[in-house]
């Protein structure tokens, strides 16, 4: 078993006891709640006459079902309205902090936690959502849980969990121009498989990860679950500190910040850390990635040929054949030139300010292709406000993108933002499963925000390195308020 890693240390500090089943009872430092997976848990609590144990450590937002266009109440969709009202009632009854759309803080749960400084290194974070691993970017242990476990956490602020093994994923070298964090994680999943991480948590490190900004680290950790890992994290460092210093949690309390920084440093995986497995990925060889199939593991570098199913390991052939029948790609050819109907810039993987800035560099001075419906759905109201302050909304609007209100939107199509028929979507989200974006014939191509922008303006899958970029990612940023 691993030793002296951040995972081991933080786990041990939160361990209340070992249960008779062999699982550990872990204390939960932050419980994030959204409207889709919580109502049944609150219901079970009520049935059992239990109360929320630590409303002070619980934080709610609404993201999955909120409309991204007309947000006047009641919502046009009755089911969405009833879920929103139920959340309002549940958090009101229990005095849980809630990023209601009226607060200006609403957004996707994995965007709002980090941007408000709720997510901190050395914490345990849980949420009834599989992309909770995102928060691991800060050196937190962050787990997605089911509704029955949400009930456990609401009732006791603890959870029963098994300790996993730790795999260190070392990304060496330096990323090429045009290659982003999204391409790194898509490449990792392609190489290790969608079930390669089962039984593990992933510790991401090495020069490429160390050089990433927090947004990039969140993108990488976000998709840990797509690689089968229960969680993923990055050891906290100066980049982490710099982000946290500017959040609500610490902006006005530098003393508290310094105090906690000692703790954050103490939990890093040390030089004596032992891992159950170490995998090295050559970062310099990573290409802008795009998926050709119906699992996030089915991707290729944009200039590489789509694999022939017969050339894959036997266990993957059938799945690959079915996937290619669904997407209609041609083995042996690259994905370049594959026509796109929709461009979706959004989701908890890639809808933060840095992502929007990055995509804007491609979009500036260009126009969305006539056959493409393109939308930007910022990850939160704060992301939207910051982007608007530096004029990114106009860059996108002028090019022909729709600029929407924050939410999960077309990532999973629980509101009106859905694919129609067999539309092809260039998407900055994390899942290309059949039916994921609201139409079971719909086809999702996962790629980086930059590549989505490139596809939007050319109308087809395009190697973004062939387009000149306008402005730098540090150009004219207005002061950012998190």
């Amino acid at each position, binding site marked *: 078993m691993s030793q002296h890693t951040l995972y081991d240390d933080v786990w041990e*500090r939160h*361990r*209340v*006891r*070992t*249960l*008779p*089943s*062999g699982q550990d*009872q872990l*204390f939960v*430092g932050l419980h994030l709640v959204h409207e*889709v*997976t919580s*109502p*049944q848990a609150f*219901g079970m609590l009520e049935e*059992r006459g239990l109360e929320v144990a630590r409303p002070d450590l619980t934080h709610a937002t609404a993201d999955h*079902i909120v409309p991204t266009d007309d947000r006047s109440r009641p919502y046009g*969709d009755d*089911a*969405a309205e*009833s879920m929103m009202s*139920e959340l309002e009632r549940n958090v009101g009854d229990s005095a849980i902090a809630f990023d209601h759309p009226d607060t200006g803080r609403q957004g996707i749960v994995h965007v709002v936690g980090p941007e408000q400084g709720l997510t*901190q290194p*050395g914490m345990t974070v849980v949420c009834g959502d*599989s992309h909770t691993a995102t928060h691991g970017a800060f050196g937190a242990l962050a787990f*997605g*849980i*089911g*509704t*029955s*476990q949400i009930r*456990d956490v609401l009732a*006791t*602020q*603890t959870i*029963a969990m*098994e300790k996993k093994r730790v795999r260190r994923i070392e990304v060496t070298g330096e990323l090429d121009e045009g290659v982003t964090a999204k391409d790194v994680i898509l490449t990792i999943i392609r190489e290790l498989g*969608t*079930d390669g991480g*089962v*039984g593990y948590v992933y510790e991401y490190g090495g020069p490429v990860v160390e050089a990433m900004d927090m947004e990039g680290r969140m993108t990488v950790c976000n998709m840990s*679950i797509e690689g*089968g890992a229960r969680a993923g994290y990055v050891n906290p460092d100066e980049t982490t500190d710099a982000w946290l210093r500017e959040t609500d949690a610490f902006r006005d309390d530098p003393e508290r910040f310094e*105090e*906690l920084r000692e*703790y954050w440093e103490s939990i890093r995986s040390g030089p004596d850390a032992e891992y159950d497995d170490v995998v090295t990925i050559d970062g310099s060889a990573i290409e802008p990635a795009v998926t050709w199939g119906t*699992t996030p593991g089915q991707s290729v570098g944009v200039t590489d040929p789509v694999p022939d199913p017969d050339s894959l390991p036997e*266990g993957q052939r*059938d*799945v690959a054949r079915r996937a290619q029948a669904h997407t209609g790609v041609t083995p042996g050819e690259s994905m370049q030139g594959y026509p796109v109907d929709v461009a979706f810039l959004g989701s908890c993987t890639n809808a933060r300010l840095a992502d929007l800035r990055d995509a804007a560099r491609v979009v500036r001075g260009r126009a969305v292709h006539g056959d493409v419906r393109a939308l930007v759905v910022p990850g939160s109201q704060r992301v939207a406000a910051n982007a608007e302050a530096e004029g990114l909304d106009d860059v996108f609007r002028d090019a022909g993108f729709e600029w929407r209100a924050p939410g999960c939107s077309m990532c*999973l*199509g*629980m509101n009106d933002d859905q694919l129609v028929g067999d539309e092809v979507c260039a998407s900055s989200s994390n*899942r290309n*499963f059949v*039916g*994921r974006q609201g139409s*079971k014939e719909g086809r999702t191509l996962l790629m980086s925000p930059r590549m989505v922008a490139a596809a939007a303006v050319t109308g087809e899958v395009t190697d973004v390195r062939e387009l000149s970029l306008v402005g730098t990612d540090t150009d004219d940023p207005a002061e950012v308020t998190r």
Partner: protein
Amino acid sequence: MSSDAADGETETTATDPVEHVSGTGIAVRGDDIDTDQILPARFLKVLTFEGLGEFAFFDQRFEEVETDHGTEEVETDHPFNDPEHRRASVLVVNSNFGCGSSREHAPQALQRWGIDAVVGESFAEIFAGNCLALGVPTVTMDGEAIEALQSFVEANPDADVAVDVAAETVAYDGRRVEADVDDTQHHALVNGQWDTTAQLAAVPERIAETANSLPYLDAS
């Protein structure tokens, strides 16, 4: 409920033990069947889990075809549409079943459809955990054994498949095959401790102690 049970001590049984599950079988073939396939997102717009059973595998079970009268939803040949398998309670699947979204709605839908145990080559972890919270075992066997069992249940929709969680075997067709039940799951099911809330709530002092020891919680 004991107030402060020591590590390893057996506590109040909160739920019924699940030692055996038997019934007829149903096979759903394919690797990487994700929870979006088991229960598409549009069926998550609900405040309770009631009635989700009829939507299990919905998008695989129906397709639109063009007819003389326009498009019509017709049933596919998905096993969940087959009347011969309608009463099945043991679901047999392949590898990485239940990957993707953490929605507990997926196992809830399967259970409400009638599934009491799932046997497969491997399961996504959150899915297996969600099944456990409902008292539904996720039992694993190697790929060949799974294929054999799938072929058997397809050919014999009325035959009994007996999953012995305690002994970690699956019996059918006069045979008894070795299977694997994860240790935690085994303990929780056999001892009827798969509903964890009462167990977790049993040690309030120790929870408070742990909370007080965390640097980020003091003085805030």
